[in-house]
């Protein structure tokens, strides 16, 4: 019995370390530097919708969206006055997906990146505070700072870009519903992708 209690306590503390943000609750705050060296905080964007896209350019699931131009299309369609699109890379130094700001500037230029900013989270703290486990993994935060969507980018887990056209894009759906004042019908899905390279 005692061992069981100790084990439970340890398990509890372990799970405390990796908390998972909840739908309907305020999204965890963060401050990160982008590829141009500028610092951004989540609070800077209060009053706007914020889309967080966990990214790793080497991951085949991310490549599915970037090589086909679909992610850039998504970014362009949604960044506007009221929507901010932040790509966050939590790859640790030396691991796939991690680039220096100089490398990033060239890369973002060459792929036609249309998001608001690419944030570097090399020590993984922000990734862990959001319990980001895959790339891509998407979060949508409303203008009041409350998390309204977390999970997969769409409903076809594969590396084949031909699947994008027939898939239901959860981010577009969430943004569409939230901006027109409706409740988000699919607020939480299981994300798919490569593991985040902490």
């Amino acid at each position, binding site marked *: *019995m005692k*061992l*069981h209690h100790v*084990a*439970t306590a340890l*398990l509890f503390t372990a*799970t405390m*370390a*990796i908390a998972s943000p909840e739908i309907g609750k305020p999204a965890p705050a963060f401050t990160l530097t982008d590829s141009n060296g500028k610092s951004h905080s989540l609070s800077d964007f209060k009053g706007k919708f914020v889309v967080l896209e966990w990214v790793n350019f*080497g*991951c*085949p*699931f991310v490549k599915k969206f970037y090589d086909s131009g679909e992610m850039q299309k998504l970014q362009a369609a949604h960044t506007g006055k009221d929507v901010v699109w932040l790509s966050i890379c*939590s790859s*640790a130094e030396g*691991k*796939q997906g991690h680039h220096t700001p100089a490398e990033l500037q060239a890369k973002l230029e060459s792929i036609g990146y249309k998001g608001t900013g690419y944030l570097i989270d090399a020590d*993984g703290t922000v*990734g*862990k505070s959001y*319990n*980001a*486990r*895959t790339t891509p993994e998407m979060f949508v935060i409303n203008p009041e700072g409350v998390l309204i969507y977390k*999970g997969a980018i769409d409903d076809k*887990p*594969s*590396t084949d870009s031909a699947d994008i056209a027939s898939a239901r894009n959860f981010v577009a759906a969430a943004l569409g519903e939230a901006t027109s004042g409706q409740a988000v019908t699919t607020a*939480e*899905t*299981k994300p*798919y*992708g*490569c*593991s*985040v*390279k*902490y």
Partner: protein
Amino acid sequence: MPGNPTFCYSADPCYRRLMSKSWLAILAVTIILCGTPSASVAQVVDGKTLVQAELISSASAIAPGETFYVGLKLTMAPGWHTYWEYSGDAGIPTKIKWDLPPGFGAGPIEWPIPKAKLEPGDIEVYGYSGEVVLLIAIQPPADLTPGTEVTLRGVASWLVCEEICIPGSAKVEITLPVAATAVASAAGKIIADWQTRVPSAEPPPYNVTWSKSGDSLTARVRSVAGVENVRFFPLPSGNQSVGHPRVSGSGDGASTISVTAASPLRGVIAAVVNGQDRSWLVVAEPGIAETAETSSDASLGVIATLPPLWQALLFGFLGGIILNLMPCVLPVISLKVFGFIRQAGDDPRQIFLHGLAFSSGIFFWFLGLGAVIVALKASGTEVTWAFQFQNPMFILVIAAVVFVFALNLCGVFELTLPGKAVGTMSDLSGKEGFSGSFFQGVFATLLATPCTGPFLGTALGFAFSQPGGVVMAMFGSIALGMASPYLLLSARPGWMKFLPKPGAWMEKLKQFMAFPLFATLLWLLSILGGQKGIDGILWTAAFLLSLGLAVWIYGAFCGPLSSVRTRVLAIACALGVALGGGWFFIGSGFLTATAQSGAVSKDGIPWQPFSQALVDELLAEGKPVFIDFTADWCITCKFNERTAINTPAVRALIAELGVVPIKADWTNSNPEITAALKAFGRVGVPFYVIYPAGRANEPITLPELLTESIVIEALKMSR
């Protein structure tokens, strides 16, 4: 002549040599076909072969109509892995897209036990490294011609990862000759070996009991000698979120599996049994228990847990409290309220004694019921909860009592005990009060029995499988729960202050309270309608009419001031009318009325009536089945049906998935349905079971209070 065998003529001596050479060639080709596997295809990245894929077959020659197994063998470079049926936090499982000759069918991939891999950032994935053979059953058509050849083709696609991930795919194929009888191949041994690592659909040969603690499902795997290294791999459905299962030893040889997920959760339990790695498909769901040893025909893949006694008693207590809120009790609360108000301002001791009398009425009923059940269990009769309500006569009697009571509240007659003088009013009201309170207690519990609420379901199921003493304790705790608010209020008369003061309004309130009773009467009549049809209702109503007349005669002529002669005459008339009405309307009318059979389903779901034979047949055909155990007198059932089952979304899903809906209508007693309920450890309704397609020993049971999303999620799991 050597060098040009094709130009030998049959008369030539070289023909014989050609033939022998041809035979040699044929022999060689045959050996090659049987001996060597089909070509393997490699995924090569940057000059390094990451994955080699090939198809192997359990049969070197297949027979028409005879199922055999094909294995997709994946050989991975060291350090690289591919994924299991549920990949975990990241990755995607291997897939095969088949291109089979006409008439051939391929089953789903049967997955051997994976390994769990923890990656930085608390990411856990499930998959294979080194080598794995994924098994697929292939069914050839019966009209194949022996002597021909068939080629099975497929495109296998996977994700292989080390530090980084690379998707891969390969066109794999295997060509097999057709023979009259199947011939096992050398590769058959490899396939058989991997088959032992595929989870079995049978229950594990040792005790597994699941329970819920917080939002974790925990299972204690009590070890039997030779069972080691227990692991659990989840198979969540759709968007079901699941945490990382953890197994801990608890020092007494048992292991505890803990996983954060909503129940039910499908998964695989793996363990090394007597040196061999074995695994079982399970559904993690807390509920009523039967241990693996005693249930040889266990339809549950995982044995659910018996709640500990104190928990069951607590639930019984809480259930008892909640009974006060059930739709079938609420109208009677009006009577209780009235009683308390009447007593407000009286001697505090009196009030408490009233509360006690009321509570003893409740106890009397529950303990009496418990005693009857214990007695019936001993006599071996089939005993089930709310069995009283399956008897139309019983409902008729209750309806008559409710009606008379309502008339009393309306003021049609007054209940006065004969022989009491007006001067001993306090005594009278006291005595009246006690027996009245006692009776109200009994009445309230009587009406509560059909409403098996969420707490009661588990507690009752527990009680019925227990020895007599426990049954009595269980019923006692329910009675205590139901009585506690009243005991409390009557013990603390100070809180009576908060009850309104008596006055002229009481009479109006008393009359108003008749209406909830009339509503209860309507409900009882609707049950009777289900059991005895329109005719049954009409005869009952006619009887009630005569009863009402009788009661009015009594009330109009039997006042405290009327003479003895008038009184006797009035009572005689009243009795005559009542008995006459009873004999005529009930005797020859009611008893012979029958409900129309085969009620038309108005809700669009094509319900089929329950029969065990039908269910067995459908399960043998591998069809998904949804059974709704319900009864007309069960309000919770009707509520669930209206709000969670008969909805457009559920209707559409049932049609889309080809689920066969079956309604087990328990309004009247039905031994088949009773037996079916008992097999699941249940003694009452509502109860819902979904048998997934082809997995008849992994039924999904739903909770007693349903929401549409629970039903939809469970139906999706039945694919």
